[in-house]
C-alpha cells in the first residue's frame, strides 16, 4: 500500500478520535440549548471549573486559600488528606449540581420571558465570573490531572497495523478511553431522555415550553436538571482535555472547538453533536495533512469553521438540527 495512503488512514483514525473529544464539549451546549434555547457561552468555562474542582478536591487543596491567608494572615494551603479519584469525581459532580441550582436561582429565574439574546449575554457574564471565581477558589497554577487514565501510544494497534500493513499506526490510549466514555455517556443520555419521567419532561420542555408548563412540568426543575447534566458533561470533557495538558485556564478555550461542531451538527441534536464532531475532526486533520504543508500549516482552527460554513450554506439548521418555521 502506498505510504501516503497509510499516513492518510492514520490521520483519519486520529481525526475521528479528536472529533470525539470535540463532540464531548459540544454535547454540553446541545443539552442546554435543546432544553432552554440558551446558547451557553459559559460551557467551556464550566469544563475548566469542573476540572479545577476535581483536582482541588483530589489533592486536598483548601479552596480560597490565598484569600483566607491574605485576610487572616494564616498559611493554609492543603488539608492533610487526599481524596481517591472516584470519590473526587463524584464530589466534583455534586459541586456542578450545586452550581446548576445557583445559576437557576440567581440568574435564570430572574430572566424568564426575556429574549434569547439577554439569556446569551447572561451566560457571557457567567463565563467571566466563573473564570475569576475559579482562579480565586483554586489558584491559577497548572494542575496535573491524574485519575488513572492511560496515556501514550496503544502498542497493540501499533503492532497489529505494523504486521498487517508494514506501518504501525499511532493511536493514543487516552483517545480510545475518551471514545468509550463518550459512547457510554451518549447511551446514558438517550436512555435517560427516552425512558425516564424526568427525561420525558425534559423533551417536553424542549419541544414546547408553554405546553410543558400547562401540564404541570416545573420549568425551574428542568433547568436545574439540564444544567446539572451539562455540568457533568463539562466535567467529563474537562477530565479528558485536562489529562492532555494539565488543568489550566486555557481549558476554557476548548469551547472554540465545539462551535464548528454545533454549526455543522445542529444546536439541538445529540447525534448531531457526535457526527458533527467526527466530521470536523476528520476534516481538519486530513486538510492539515494534505494541504497544510503547502500553505504553511496550522490550518485546523480556521479550517474547522470553513467546513462548518460550507455545510451551513446548504443546510442552515445543521445536519441534524430542527428546521424552525415561524408563521406570521
Amino acid at each position: 500500500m502506498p505510504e501516503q495512503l497509510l499516513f492518510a488512514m492514520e490521520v483519519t483514525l486520529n481525526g475521528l478520535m479528536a472529533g470525539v473529544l470535540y463532540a464531548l464539549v459540544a454535547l454540553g451546549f446541545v443539552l442546554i440549548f435543546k432544553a432552554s434555547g440558551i446558547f451557553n457561552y459559559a460551557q467551556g468555562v464550566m469544563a475548566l471549573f469542573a476540572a479545577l474542582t476535581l483536582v482541588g478536591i483530589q489533592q486536598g487543596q483548601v479552596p480560597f486559600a490565598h484569600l483566607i491567608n491574605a485576610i487572616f494572615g494564616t498559611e493554609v494551603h492543603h488539608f492533610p488528606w487526599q481524596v481517591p479519584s472516584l470519590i473526587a469525581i463524584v464530589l466534583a459532580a455534586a459541586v456542578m449540581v450545586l452550581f446548576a441550582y445557583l445559576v437557576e436561582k440567581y440568574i435564570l429565574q430572574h430572566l424568564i420571558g426575556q429574549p434569547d439574546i439577554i439569556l446569551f449575554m447572561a451566560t457571557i457574564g457567567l463565563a467571566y465570573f466563573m473564570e475569576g471565581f475559579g482562579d480565586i477558589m483554586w489558584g491559577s497554577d497548572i494542575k496535573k490531572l491524574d485519575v488513572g487514565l492511560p496515556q501514550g501510544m496503544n502498542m497493540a494497534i501499533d503492532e497489529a497495523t505494523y504486521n498487517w500493513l508494514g506501518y504501525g499506526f499511532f493511536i493514543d490510549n487516552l483517545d480510545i478511553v475518551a471514545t468509550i466514555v463518550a459512547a457510554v455517556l451518549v447511551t446514558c443520555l438517550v436512555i435517560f431522555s427516552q425512558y425516564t419521567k424526568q427525561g420525558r419532561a425534559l423533551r417536553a420542555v424542549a419541544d414546547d415550553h408553554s405546553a410543558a408548563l400547562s401540564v404541570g412540568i416545573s420549568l425551574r426543575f428542568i433547568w436545574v436538571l439540564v444544567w446539572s447534566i451539562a455540568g457533568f458533561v463539562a466535567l467529563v470533557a474537562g477530565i479528558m482535555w485536562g489529562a492532555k495538558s494539565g488543568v489550566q485556564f486555557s481549558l476554557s478555550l476548548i469551547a472554540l472547538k465545539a462551535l464548528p461542531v454545533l454549526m455543522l451538527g445542529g444546536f439541538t441534536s445529540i447525534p448531531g453533536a457526535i457526527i458533527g464532531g467526527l466530521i470536523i475532526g476528520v476534516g481538519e486533520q486530513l486538510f492539515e495533512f494534505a494541504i497544510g504543508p503547502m500553505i504553511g500549516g496550522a490550518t485546523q482552527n480556521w479550517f474547522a469553521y470553513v467546513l462548518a460554513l460550507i455545510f451551513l450554506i446548504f443546510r442552515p439548521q445543521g445536519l441534524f438540527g430542527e428546521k424552525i418555521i415561524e408563521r406570521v
Partner: protein
Amino acid sequence: MKYTKLAAASVTALMVATPVLADLVFPSLSYRTGPYAAGGGPYADGFADYFTLVNERDGGIGGVMASVPECETAYNTEKGVECYEATKGLGALAYNPLSTGITYQLIPKVTADDIPLYTPGYGRTSAANGKVFSHVFNFPANYWHGASLAVNHLKDVSGGDLADKKIVLLYHNSAYGKEPIRTLEDLSEKHGFEFLTVPVDHPGQEQKAQWLQIRRERPDFVIMYGWGVMNQVAVQEAANIRFPMENMIGIWWSGGDHDVTPAGDAANGYKAVSFHGVGSDYPVFDDIQKYVVDAGKAAGNGDHIGKAIYNRGVYAAMLLAESARTAQEIHDTADITSSMMRDGMEALEITEERMAELGMPGFGPAFKVSCENHGGPGTGAIQQWDAAAGTWSLITDYGPSDMEIIQPLIEEDSAAYAAENKIEERCN
C-alpha cells in the same frame, strides 16, 4: 506612654518636614489571568519580589524606594498598550511587558516618550542594535541567540557534526514563534542539517496533526518555541509518540516547571535553553524568603521561588535595579528620570563580583551594555528536567551563540526598521 506618643509625633513631624523623594517606578505589565497566566504569574511574582527585597533589605535603590504598580494585560496586545498609557504618568522608569506583541506596539511609543523598554529574552530581536533602537534593550540574550545555543548543543551531542541530521522547529504560530526561523535556516545551511517547520496555532491545546507529522518525518531533534498550554501539550504528545525527550529542546519560554509537570515522569530528560540560573540554591532566594515571603510582603504565596520563570522575573528586576543604580551614579542623583534610566541601562556593567554581592553568584553572565550593543553577550546554558526530583539542572556551562550568523541578521533587520521609520544611526 507619653514619651512613646511624643516620639511618634516627632517622627511624623520629621517625615512631613523632610522632602520625600518620589518612588522609582517600574510598572509590571503582568498577566495573572487568561490562557497564559501559568507563566505570567510566577514571572510577575519574581519581578515584584526582587524590588520588595531591595526596599526591605537595602532601603531601596540609592536610598529611594522602588514601586512596582501592576497592570493586567492578560497577554493581550491592546490591553498591554492601554496599561502602558495608564501607567506611564506615574513616572515610569522602564517597561518590561513580557510579550513580544506588546513590545512591537510599544517600541515607537517609548522612543517618543523617552522611556526605556526592557525585553530580556523576548521582543524584537534586532532591537539589540542600539544604533537604531535607542530605547529598547534585550540583554543578556534574545530569540536568535536561543536558536543558535540550541543548535550548538545539538551539535555537541551529535559528536560535533549535524550533517545528515533532521531538525524540526515546532513553533507558536505568532510573531514570537516565527522569530527563530530565519536564524535556523541560516544555521541549517552552515551546518548542513535538514530543517523543517511545524506551526501550532494559538492556544495549542490540540496538536495531534503536528505530532503525527513529526512522527512521519522522524526528525533527530525537535526545537520548540512555545508558550502557554502549547508547551504542556507538546511535551505530552512527544511522550505519547515516544519521541526521545532528551532530543527535544525548548527555548527558555518553553522551559518552565509548569511546562513539564503535567506530563509527569514522561517529561524526564526534556531540555531547554536558559540565560540564567535555575533552582533556589542562591543566597538571594534566602533573602527573599526572609525579607519578603516571611514578612508577608510577597506578591504571591512564595511557592514559586526557585522555579525557572520566577527566577527569570527576579533576574530581570535585578538588571533593572542595577541599571537604575548605574543611572544614579552617572547623573549624581538618586531621583532619576526615565531618560536617565535609559542612560543607566546603556552603561550597565554586570561583573561576577557584583553578582556575588547581590547573592546571585554565577546566576547569569558577566557583561557590559554599550551604545551599539543593547543585546548583551548572547550566552546561555542548557537545562534539563529531572522528573523524579522535580527540578531543572544546568547540564552545560554558559556558552556563546553563533554571532557570525546572528549579527548580520540583526544588522539587516534593524537597517530595514531604520529605513522604514527614517531613523538615523547613533553612536557614531
